């Protein structure tokens, strides 16, 4: 039987693919802009017609007009809420965003690793599973918001409680997802490994782990937004500085412009987060076909 020709496609073909990709990308960007533009137009129209009170619902051209004034409220130092910082600049805004992002990233990473370890442990060690699974199932439905006091009792004020809350927000759901992923590993995969002489440990390491990781990463991405919500709430009730704290301060001082400005920042940051996770997923977990990744 003849062997197939597997030489890679020619370079002209490659550049064709690249221009096709670029076109695809531009189309996506255009539609995204159109989507946001539609919303902004509607809002501005409502303001123009006098439907939206500019004090309570200031449209984008108002809350984005005096940026330096808005910047004054951002203090990456994390001093107490309500204080106007002295050096309000673009950098301080980035600083505040960075703090919130760092908490989300740390909490997500911690929650992901912990849930993976516990999930694998529950299935690997039978007694451990029997002992821990009911607890996980029982704690899972408790909202992360209910954990806020616990976080403060244990960790006080600062970064630790916010990270803890993000971690809690993803941990239980990710643990249960890990279990369901382990249970749905194709039987063939495991039987083949058994025939090849794999031990139980080798099956977990070489077969089960790589099989479940891609789906778990998708689950993590879906829980990213939940993590963002939790970190903002945590910051708002005072366990840290960050975007949530700014929002809360804006609410307390009736600064609607600042509320919407912060909301814009939160939206953009969340979007960037999702995109970067998607990128990581595509690079690290290449064996998920692009079609599966693109679906989400």
């Amino acid at each position: 039987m003849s062997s197939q020709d597997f030489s890679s496609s020619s370079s002209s073909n490659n550049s064709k693919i690249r221009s096709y990709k670029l076109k695809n990308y531009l189309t996506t960007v255009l539609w995204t802009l159109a989507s946001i533009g539609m919303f902004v137009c509607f809002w501005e129209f409502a303001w123009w017609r006098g439907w939206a009170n500019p004090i309570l619902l200031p449209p984008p051209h108002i809350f984005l007009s005096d940026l330096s004034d808005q910047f004054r409220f951002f203090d990456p130092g994390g001093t107490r809420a309500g204080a106007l910082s002295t050096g309000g600049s673009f950098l301080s805004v980035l600083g505040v965003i960075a703090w919130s992002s760092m908490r989300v990233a740390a909490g997500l990473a911690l929650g992901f690793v912990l849930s993976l370890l516990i999930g694998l442990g529950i299935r690997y060690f039978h007694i451990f599973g029997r002992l821990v699974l009911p607890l996980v199932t029982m704690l899972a439905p408790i909202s992360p918001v209910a954990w806020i006091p616990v976080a403060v009792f244990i960790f006080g004020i600062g970064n630790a409680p916010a990270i803890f809350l993000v971690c809690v927000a993803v941990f239980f759901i990710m643990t249960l997802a890990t279990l369901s992923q382990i249970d749905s590993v194709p039987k063939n995969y495991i039987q083949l490994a058994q025939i090849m002489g794999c031990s139980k440990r080798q099956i977990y390491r070489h077969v089960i782990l790589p099989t479940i990781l891609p789906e778990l990463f998708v689950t993590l991405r879906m829980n990213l937004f939940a993590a963002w919500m939790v970190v903002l709430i945590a910051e708002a009730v005072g366990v840290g500085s960050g975007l949530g704290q700014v929002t809360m301060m804006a609410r307390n001082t009736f600064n609607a412009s600042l509320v919407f400005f912060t909301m814009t920042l939160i939206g953009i940051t969340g979007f960037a987060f999702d995109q970067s996770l998607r990128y990581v997923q595509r690079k690290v977990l290449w064996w998920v076909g692009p079609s599966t990744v693109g679906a989400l």
Partner: protein
Amino acid sequence: MTIGLKINNLAKIWNPDSNNPVKALDNINLNIELGEFVVLLGPSGCGKSSLLYILAGLENATEGIAKFDGLKIESPSPERGLIFQEASLYPWLTVKDNVTFGLKISGFSQNKRDKAAERLLKLVGLKGAGEHRPHQLSGGMRQRAALARALAMQPKVLLMDEPFAALDIQTRARMQTHLLDVWKESKASVVLVTHSIDEALALADRVIVFTSRPGQIKAEISVSEPRPRDLRSSKMLKLAKKCEKLLEEEVEKAFKEQELA
């Protein structure tokens, strides 16, 4: 010491402790010699795949015993390779790493694995596909990679569970020829499950026809024609008719039972 597979009074009942135990196999007696090509032919759901899984050591027999080279089969072993209907290559590994997965587990060095991969991929006609990923291959190529993966462990028996059922007819015919070449070269026994009479007659030294559930051995047909066989020759057509008649009775029986139930 007896060489090859020896199956004595074997029976398999699924869910024996539940309300509706299902008897999949009953009273199976079969010897398969080293280097023999045996095809298990039967209507779907007759338990022939169950028998294959028992021979692989992935399932236990409820009654009776299955022995390989004189030892009771109790757990899976690399010397009894299994090939599924779907190739089941690991999607996170390249074709080469899939083929040498078992060697890696057994602790072979990278160098030795590379050499083995080259030899095996050439043997199954996938030379140059080693660095590709499974999803880049067609169904037939994937199944050949799965064959190479099984051969890497130098099995004494190849157990094949409807390996070509998911392929189109043209690919299937080529794969059968190919399998015969590989079989001759490897000198392993092959136990292949199928419900296609043509496939059975094209490949087998011996065709074992199964009854519908519970699967019992209904007939044994030896095929002595030299390969490659012309399935349209009068002798082969006669054998095909015979198989058809045997299978028809069983399908008829199965249908009647389903009507009753």
